[in-house]
């Protein structure tokens, strides 16, 4: 099963490498990984999506908790949560029909065209990973030149917060 694990991490040099190293060292899978500082500059927030059975995911959270630089760990998929991922996708758009088709599809998925040249469109889209997958699928007629995805960020629904 797919899990989204959120980690509060000391914003120290080398802290990220400890997390990444842990995953490869223990043969845990990483689907995506995002990390950036939070409003508290001493803390980074890291989101990792992984696929594993209950036993593996239990080990992942326990082993993450053992890292000295890790302050808190929560498996967001254990409760109600929101996940978002940002994608920018550059497409070949060199004639009117294709351009119209891309524009229409992007509108359906609530994407925005954020850059255009005579021959290309760049579409920005935010949503769950599966929505981004679906958009790529829906574009199967168009020719994709480049895809860049941010990886998943997640947050719990309601009043639950992950903080110190």
């Amino acid at each position, binding site marked *: 099963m797919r899990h989204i694990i959120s980690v509060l991490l000391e914003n120290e040099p*080398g802290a990220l490498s400890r997390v990444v190293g842990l995953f490869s060292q223990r043969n845990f899978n990483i689907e995506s990984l995002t990390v950036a500082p939070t409003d508290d500059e001493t803390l980074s927030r890291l989101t990792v999506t992984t696929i594993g059975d209950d036993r593996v995911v239990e080990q992942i959270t326990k082993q993450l908790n053992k890292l000295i630089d890790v302050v808190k760990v929560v498996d967001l998929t254990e409760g109600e949560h929101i996940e978002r991922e940002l994608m920018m996708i550059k497409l070949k758009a060199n004639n009117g029909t294709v351009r119209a088709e891309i524009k229409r599809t992007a509108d359906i998925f609530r994407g925005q065209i954020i850059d255009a040249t005579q021959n290309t469109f760049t579409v920005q889209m935010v949503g769950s990973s599966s929505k981004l997958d679906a958009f790529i699928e829906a574009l199967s007629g168009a020719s994709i030149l480049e895809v860049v995805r941010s990886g998943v960020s997640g947050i719990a629904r309601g009043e639950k917060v992950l903080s110190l």
Partner: protein
Amino acid sequence: MELLSGAEMVVRALKDEGVEYIYGYPGGSVLHLYDALFQQEDVQHVLVRHEQAATHMADAYARATGKAGVALVTSGPGATNAITGIATAYTDSIPMVVITGQVMSHLIGEDAFQETDMLGISRPVVKHNFSVQRAEDIPTIIRKAFHIAQTGRPGPVVVDIPKDMTTPTDRFPYEYPKNVKMRSYNPINRGHAGQIKKAMDLFLSAKRPVILAGGGVVIGQASEELRELINLTNVPTTNTLMALGALAGRDRHNLGMLGMHGSYEANMAMHHADVILNIGARFDDRVTNGTDKFCPTAKIIHVDIDPASISKTIRADIPIVGPAKIVLDEMLSIVKASTKQLDAESLKSWWEQIEEWRGRHGGRYRTDDSELMKPQQVIEMLDTITNGDAYVCSDVGQHQMYAAQYYKFNHPNRWINSGGLGTMGFGLPAAMGVKMNFPDADVACVTGEGSIQMNIQELSTCSQYDIPVKIICLNNQSLGMVRQWQDMNYESRHSQSYMKSLPDFVKLAESYGHVGMKVDKYADLEGAMREAFAMKDRLVFMDIAVDPFEHVYPMQVPRGSMRDMWLSKTERT
């Protein structure tokens, strides 16, 4: 406030930690540190001949005392040579602080002379590591290093210090912090009371209970509590390789070691148990054999200070996270206060069954079919001559298993071996580390002609510092454990397991100024060994010729259950 250089702060911080000996080897990046060491007398430095030995000496000190050992090495090759020793300590949860030199800050990342990324290289085998970025942080970092190494599940901590952090002319006010608070590190200091209560309910309702003691009991200084619980409940007890001595070897409750080379009775008792109380053992693969067939009728109570060790390989029915000593203490008070007792009839017949197993196969080896001395006989002689009181520092291989099986430790913290990583070359430096700190104790290095050659250069360190350990070398002229597996699984194709061109160990020992002895016949063994131990102030290298064809038994059948064992070359359960 006193002004000290970074180098002086390192040395002073060690003194303030109560460190008496550090083990190390100098080099370019740590010259300022060595100069600071030279100018004081509180912290004594022991010069090894290879950095790996420094880490093993520090590690063994920690295993014997429970306090973190300290090693000091230079950058680059000094640091990488220390890695094996760091990994050895990590795998066995041994507290250690390793200070590594680093090239000057402005050179980091430029492939400078003797530069390696020690933080990166050591990361998978340390509990934590630090890089000093500002010299004034040195006291806090060293305090944190000791704090992390010695609390919770212990482990090695590396402190990497760029050379310019120790410049003699840059001086800073020094104050050693008494305590450090780290918001991200709060080791658990007691078990969950409800879980402990539940565990004792289950334990006391057992008909065929077994206590399994692991390294956590020894490292957690909980042997006394364990022994009290055993005496109070009369429950049969087995231990992992790491917990030899937690319960006295000659105690009748002691079934001996379990697992791959565990005793017949220990493995049988585990297989048939209905409740297993595991205290401080992590159910590693050498203990469990095939996890899908592990102890099919048992409910498992698992006490461990590391939550990640619980339900990692074997699912626990009642997990308890906490230090062995505190949890055992609570268990004891519950048992003492409880009206519920183990059912006496069931326990009696359980013991009868166990005694029957013990009588059938326990501690057996054959001496009659060969003229050659059996390695087991040598260990039994060592046990007799030292009364089970010696520090036995083992290398890795068949001799290690014989020592584990046949030396009957009276006390914990005296069996010093690389259990998890299985590091050949560990034994001699480990014995040295123990002997320097316990000069009056009998300290034996049980080794083989293969292992001893992996750190043989330390005989020189022993000369320099007069470290009179006794080296008991079971010489079977081959890499015995490798050859045993080749006998059993590869139709005796002895690929690279034969040690040709062995040195004359007697002359070798003598060339370093030590005493060498060669023993070929069992009849000579007792006299020679007594003589060796009587030479209190000399290192004696006993080169003892043993049967090269002997195998370690019992040996579990791979991926079988606990009770699936080879009992000799021809008998299987």
